[in-house]
């Protein structure tokens, strides 16, 4: 298997994931905006947050693809189906722990159940499965991550030929 195919797959997968999330936002299905959430961890300026957030978002997309690559190597298998399955696992992890629990704790501008009158929250916490950002958010997140995983899996599979 080829490491660079995972990097390119990560970029392509993140591109599609971002497009799906953005389209879902325009369709009023969710308020989830991952680049915005990531960027506002570094700045309170909405404009700068989005620019920084997209860089961070794509960087994380590549990092996760490398994680997928390690799993593919370990399992000695890759492909769209396996990638999609990993996407399901990642969506579940993101919705239940990564974005739901960890992000509010480390994000300086996001509220959490621990926020008290001492804090001035600028962003509401995502809640379980990020449902605070709209009831369709879990479904949108699942679809986006399945596509991401399938694309990374496909790139790694064909990149190894």
């Amino acid at each position, binding site marked *: 298997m080829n490491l660079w195919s995972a990097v390119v797959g990560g970029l392509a997968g993140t591109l599609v994931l971002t497009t799906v999330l953005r389209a879902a*936002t325009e369709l*009023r299905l*969710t*308020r989830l905006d991952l680049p915005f959430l990531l960027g506002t961890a570094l700045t309170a*300026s*909405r*404009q700068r947050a989005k620019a920084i957030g997209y860089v961070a978002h794509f960087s994380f997309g590549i990092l996760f693809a490398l994680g997928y690559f390690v799993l593919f190597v370990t399992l000695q298998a890759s492909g769209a189906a396996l990638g999609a399955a990993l996407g399901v696992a990642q969506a579940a992890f993101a919705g239940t722990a990564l974005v739901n629990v960890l992000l509010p704790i480390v994000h300086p501008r996001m*509220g*959490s*159940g*621990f*926020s*008290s*009158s*001492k*804090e*001035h*929250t*600028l*962003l*509401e*916490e995502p*809640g379980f499965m990020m*449902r*605070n*950002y*709209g*009831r369709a958010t879990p479904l949108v997140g699942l679809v986006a991550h399945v596509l991401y995983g399938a694309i990374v899996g496909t790139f790694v599979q064909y990149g190894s030929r």
Partner: protein
Amino acid sequence: MDIDRYTPIRDHAAIGDGRTIALVGLDGSIDWLCLPDLDSPSVFGSLLDAGSGGAFTLAPDLPFESTHRYVEGTNVLVTEYTTPMGAVRVTDGMTLPGDDLAPFRELARTVERIAGEVPMRWSVTPRFGYGRDRTTIAVRHGIPVASAGKVALAVNTWDAGSPRLGPSSIEGRFVARGDAGIAISVAAQEPLVFPSRDDVERRMKDTAEFWRTWAHTCVYDGAWRDAVERSALALKLLVFAPSGAVAAAATTSLPEDLGGERNWDYRFCWLRDSAFTVSSFLRLGYVAEADAFFWWLMHASQLTHPRLRVLYGLDGGVAATETELPLAGYRGSAPVRVGNAAVGQVQLDIYGSLMQAAWVYTEAGRPIDGEVARRLARTADLVCDIWREPDSGIWEVRSEPRHFTHSKMMCWVALDRAIGLAGRGHIHGSVDRWSAQRQAIGSFIESRCWSESRRSYVRSAGSSELDASVLLGALLGYGDPHDPRMTCTIDAIRSDLGRGPFLDRYRGTDGMRGSEGAFLACSFWLVEALARSGRRSEASSLMGELVSRANDVGLYSEEIDASDGEFLGNFPQALSHLALIGAAVALEQMSSP
């Protein structure tokens, strides 16, 4: 129904931590507390059902007289009890976390001997899930713990007697010879934290210090400083820190009509209040709170824009399904409702509130980005499309929609502020269309919503009933407050809707049975309208009367019984305190050269 078992609403004070609020009665009973958050189900709810609602009582075990007050500049409450055997002081607070390992939520009550030796009695009777969940009581590491589902609370005591466990309560007795304390630590989905006495006392001290520091940053220094500071502290209690939203009140279903059906859940954030909220925070110098609320407002309304919901959940959600609980209700005022069906109503005034909030926010030098600007412009476009529709109005009537005057005025305000924002370069859009539609709305109001016979703007197009909400036209810039039509309206409303120093909201039908008390926010709006129309002396005198009708700790509910001063409606009420702040600031501005 034994109404004596219900502590009057007026006899309560509020303590909180930015996540939830407890109401403490003058009799030492905490009879309202939702856990873990303000909009969670109640654990102590005897305010809504004295028999099975649950409470945390702590008071002398013999007849007593009591007074309570806040520690100056804080949301920490002190109640002093005088008995034939001596006197004690109880300090109540919901602690704020510091750097140490603190419980998820913590409510502390410390007892201090003042004189003599006073026998004390306490009882914790939790009723999780509005009393619907089965409570388990056990002892863990020597500490009584009550739990149901994911929520658990531990009753930590120091020199407060040996806790006795009943099937559904934890109780104790002791004699107050020195200092004692009881702290309830709460966990939700996590292991409980059992705090030490030193930790609790340190957090209580730090909590009082935080509130003092926060209150002292208030920049208002006018004649009504004490009332404004208390209102700001009450408002801060209603700020839901995890999101920045401001709850309309801490309670559900406290009745607007004793024994009646006008009982609503106010643990949501109403867009109607948004302009007042942003304006009050900025006028008092609380920029961070204004920022947090405005960000929350923009985020919460993102899913539905350019259409807006009447209210949003404190977490930004739009779900507010209204259901009834099997509770007796405050003094028999059933039904007890959770959720609020007003969420599905059409209310045109909220667009004016949003645009006014954005206007005030940007005029204070706060930035808005391109995406928010585009949304505001689309909101103005939407107002052009929908202002001709009837709606349910600011008072959320459950009768047929009408062409409410206040709603039209707020549509006018929405377009006026949009034009102003465009003039300042904050937003871009169809300014010519906005101007034309603003003029059309103005023509509609002047021709259809003014009554020559009443010499007043009326409740709705073509009606002859009056409505205090049109006072907001004078406050928010629909016309000049000195304009003869507006000054006549102020007089007509005062004459027709006035009850002593108070105002009723409106005359006429609203789709509900029964009557209601005088509406406190309207009374403060009258003060502001009088002040802005140049009648400062009248305004000041009325303000004095209204401030004197607060309860003994300076709080207001939504309504008041004009005959006996008893509070009605949910408590403490953000809109009442926002209106007080607006009136005080207006009086100050009008007295300045």
